[in-house]
């Protein structure tokens, strides 16, 4: 979503700093998995606000609907049946973009300004600059962006940046009937999470905790998990997500190194020519050939 009044902190494929002078408040969405009832009101609100209508699918025997994130499904409830402490637990996690402080999608993106990180922490895709290469998918540690079959552009949750820009909470947070989705400054959300975690611990969930993974610099979508020691239980939420070393090598170290090496070969060739001179057929051999012709 482009053209809005949010300061840009980081811009894809841009080697000079973006606006740095102002620092706005970092925001966050807090999803309390323990109070989510799986009603999917957040999914409907997301579709409604963002004018998205995923294709109607087929039931596949699980409650997940649609079964995966998509260009028209920016958030999806993931339902996991797990056994913990000899009881069945039905864990429900609202999946979608985590809005990493260190976003792998933005790092991998080759198109200037197709991926934006605002100073409030929202990572947003600007589809008008998207070239459809899918590098964001390659860079994301959470498997979130999806390339549209219709227009080959990448889409994902915008954290309702258009609403946040005018001081409104994201549509999903607004719609949640149990208050499982909270929205505010990141500090407030962490404080609120503490109260929830204390409550869960009191109720016997010793390992309850906040999911704000440091490997990606923290996220602007955080979870309260009853089993924070096993994030994988929640439909494979990664325990220690970070940008893959392969992506860091590809879009970090290799970029300037290869560029310098190629410039070196080009300049080396030029200076070889002007210092050593061309390699011409010697006079001696030319004379030999002439002599042969004279015979």
């Amino acid at each position, binding site marked *: 979503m482009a053209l809005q009044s949010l300061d840009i902190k980081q811009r894809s*494929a*841009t*080697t000079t700093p973006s606006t740095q002078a102002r620092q706005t408040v970092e925001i966050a969405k807090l999803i309390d998995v323990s109070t989510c009832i799986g009603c999917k009101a957040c999914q409907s609100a997301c579709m409604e606000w963002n004018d998205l209508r995923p294709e109607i699918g087929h039931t596949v025997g699980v409650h997940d609907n649609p079964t995966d994130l998509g260009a028209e499904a920016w958030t999806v409830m993931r339902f996991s049946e797990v056994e913990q402490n000899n009881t069945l637990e039905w864990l429900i996690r609202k999946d979608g973009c985590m809005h990493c402080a260190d976003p792998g999608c933005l790092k*991998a993106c*080759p*198109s*200037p300004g197709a991926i934006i990180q605002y100073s409030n922490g929202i990572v947003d895709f600007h589809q008008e600059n998207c*070239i*459809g*290469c*899918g*590098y964001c*998918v*390659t860079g994301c540690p959470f*498997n979130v962006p999806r*390339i549209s079959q219709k227009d*080959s552009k990448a889409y994902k949750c915008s954290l309702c940046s258009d609403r946040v820009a005018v001081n409104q909470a994201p549509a999903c947070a607004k719609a949640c009937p149990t208050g499982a989705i909270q929205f505010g400054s990141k500090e407030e959300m962490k404080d609120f999470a503490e109260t929830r975690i204390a409550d869960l611990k009191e109720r016997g969930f010793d390992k309850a905790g906040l999911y704000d993974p440091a490997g990606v610099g923290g996220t602007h979508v955080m979870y309260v998990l009853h089993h924070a020691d096993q994030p994988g239980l929640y439909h494979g939420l990664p325990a220690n997500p970070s940008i*893959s070393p*392969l*992506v860091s*090598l*590809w879009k970090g170290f*290799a*970029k*300037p190194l*290869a*560029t310098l*090496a*190629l410039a070196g*070969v*080009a300049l080396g*060739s030029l200076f*070889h*020519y002007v210092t*050593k*001179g*061309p*390699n*011409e*057929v*010697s006079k001696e*051999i*030319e004379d*030999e*050939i002439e002599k*042969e*012709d004279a015979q």
Partner: protein
Amino acid sequence: MIRDPKDLKRYEPRERANHWVVGISFILLALSGLAFFHPAFFPLTQLFGGPVWARIIHPYLGVLMALSFLGLYVRFKHLNRMTPADREWLAKAKNMVDGNDHDMPEQGKYNGGQKVMFWALAVCMLLMTVSGLLIWRAWFGFDITLVRLGAVVHAAAGATMIGLIMVHIYAAIWVKGTIRAMWYGTVTRGWAKQHHRGWYRQVTGK
């Protein structure tokens, strides 16, 4: 076209045409590929009708280059087998680069450096093709680890190949009388005698 009836034929028309299909597709691939690699090169996408077109076209050009290079590979691989004389040539390559080629060992149609170039390019082409298919999202959706590995290999092999081709082009510019072999297929007898004496003797019988 033979300018002097005594010039020596080095390449057949179909070999030259094949070379230039590879060459043109390589140049277009390098320009568009660099654009996706480093933001400094991103404006190069304008040569292809904009960044989205560059992204669409690039892999198809890659298929063209892979297939046309396969043609060159099949045609020339038997001429690029390494021999002891090639190893000796390579050991003395520094003298050659310094501009002193008097005591270089006698070479056939290709010298040791050209053969190393041939095999290095063949390896790069294979890596580029396989890794390129891995990251071609319009048609394929491989496992994410494979895609990431593909992206790294594609970038590394691509940068290496651009460097190799720069050397290839520079060598052709540096050694006077070479480029015409790829334009109209012939070289002078003097050129052949100086740079590829073994081949000169083979084709002239001298």
